[in-house]
């Protein structure tokens, strides 16, 4: 775990992530400007750092309703504004980028932040980036696998010689600058089903698994498949960290949490997926066995306890800014995480 800068004696890492959605706040019926949205993300990173959270991550999506296309630039600003918190992507759509440039960006981030940068590489659950940046969605799988291989090679080798289908070959190429300790933590972003989890396991790459909602146990097969695949490839699963991520909203009591959050979730989903979040399912989400993180701090702690028993993960990232949640509520969530939830979670996960 040291290779990935994770110290299990301190308990599960707790962090925040944003996908950078830029949607209206349904309570107010208004959308803030892209400028304000970006500045508030940086501000949330600062608050999270001051509150002692472990990780702050920002992802990219290249289409309407998003504001963080240039996520590495935003992460640069977060790195400059913070002191201790780890800085990661959530995720970097590696398929549409040059792994050399991605590595250059993140090792620069690592130097700016004094060794706090990490890459989370994904394929993207939205396809806007492919059209815009000139890639064919039909190469969805191969684009990613090839580029991830190259990215890992750059991370492991000082001089890279490589040849592939989607990028010009490299001969004894030095990718500079090098990160602070010569190595970056690189994670594979995995959606719900086990297919992608197994690929992460085969390659022995840490996995960041999204558990957006529904019964938490539905995601256990992906966790098991990941560890099994890692074992088959000769890796020790005990050395490979797993992170899980979920939509998250907490308030002093569960009624307030549900009342305040539902419109953000419902309207946000209808913008991004074309259908809202059914009330019936949302009513079930308060149960400790449901992966959607909504409720009072005590209920969230119970959910974390249940999920830790299921997955034994090393890191949890909360998405607290989805669907136009206003900044004062984002700040309130950070406060409740830092003062009530995170200390309790660290207590029962410290090794």
């Amino acid at each position, binding site marked *: 775990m040291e290779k990935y800068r994770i110290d299990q004696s301190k308990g599960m890492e707790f962090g925040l992530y944003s996908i950078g959605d830029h949607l209206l706040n349904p309570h107010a019926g208004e959308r803030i400007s892209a400028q304000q949205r970006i500045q508030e993300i940086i501000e949330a990173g600062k608050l999270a750092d001051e509150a002692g959270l472990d990780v702050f991550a920002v992802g990219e999506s290249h289409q309407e309703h998003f504001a963080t296309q240039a996520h590495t630039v935003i992460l640069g600003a977060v790195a400059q504004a913070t002191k201790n918190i780890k800085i990661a992507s959530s995720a970097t759509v590696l398929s549409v980028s040059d792994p050399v440039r991605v590595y250059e960006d993140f090792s620069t981030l690592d130097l700016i932040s004094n060794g706090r940068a990490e890459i989370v590489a994904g394929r993207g659950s939205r*396809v806007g980036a492919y059209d815009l940046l000139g890639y064919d*969605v039909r190469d969805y799988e191969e684009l990613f696998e090839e580029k991830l291989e190259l990215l890992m090679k750059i991370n492991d080798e000082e001089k890279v010689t490589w040849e592939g289908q989607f990028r010009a070959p490299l001969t004894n190429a030095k990718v500079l600058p090098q990160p602070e300790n010569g190595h970056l933590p690189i994670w594979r972003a995995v959606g719900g089903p086990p297919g992608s989890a197994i690929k992460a396991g085969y390659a022995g790459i840490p996995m960041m698994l999204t558990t957006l909602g529904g019964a938490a146990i539905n995601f256990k097969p992906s966790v098991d498949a990941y560890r099994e695949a890692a074992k088959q490839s000769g890796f020790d699963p005990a050395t490979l960290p797993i992170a899980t991520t979920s939509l998250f909203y907490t308030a002093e009591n569960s009624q307030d949490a549900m*009342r305040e959050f*539902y419109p953000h979730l419902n309207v946000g989903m209808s913008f991004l997926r*074309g*259908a809202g979040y*059914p*009330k*019936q399912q949302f009513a079930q989400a308060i149960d400790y066995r449901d992966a959607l993180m909504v409720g009072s701090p005590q209920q969230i702690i119970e959910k974390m306890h249940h999920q830790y028993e299921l997955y034994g993960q090393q890191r949890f990232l909360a998405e607290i800014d989805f669907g136009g949640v206003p900044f004062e509520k984002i700040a309130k969530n950070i406060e409740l995480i830092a003062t009530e939830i995170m200390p309790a979670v660290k207590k029962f996960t410290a090794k």
Partner: protein
Amino acid sequence: MKVVLLAGSNVGSKTRTAMDYTLKIANEKYPEVEFTLLDLAEYDMVFSDGRNYWEYEGDTKYVTETIMAADALIIGTPTFQASIPATLKNIFDLLPVNAFRDKIVGTLVTAGTSKHYLMVEQQLKPILAYMKAQIVQTYVFIEEKDFYRKEIVNDDVLFRIERLVEDTVDLTETYAKIQEAKDAMYDF
């Protein structure tokens, strides 16, 4: 209440003829309801490529958005090779997985032979159920001999169409009430 009548084929005339009758009966019986007939023969649809439905352009965007905005659908389909035509399947492929959640879907089917009577049960209803439709269980089955020169000549078929329209509208109203009662149970 918005109801879309979808004629699911780009060729032939029987399904369109039956849907014209359906539209006429529907408008006479329920002037307060907004019925829209979409005949896929009149639209230039592209094949689904995995995009979100609102990210298409032109007719594809119009047809899918009109369907998604409806409270109920009456799908008219011919029978091709013991199944629904590709044009209709493409509509389903263009829409999200839970596209028919909270929507009532009624069905009318035309076929060259009575031997296709169970096609809707075996081919269409499983798709509708997967997409979370509230299905009007009884459908109207119309075969070759019920038509004569683009007219329906079997009174029983006309009565059945009338009942299909009634059932679809009644179930849509009822379902809205169920939904309202359910939503009232929740504190958010």
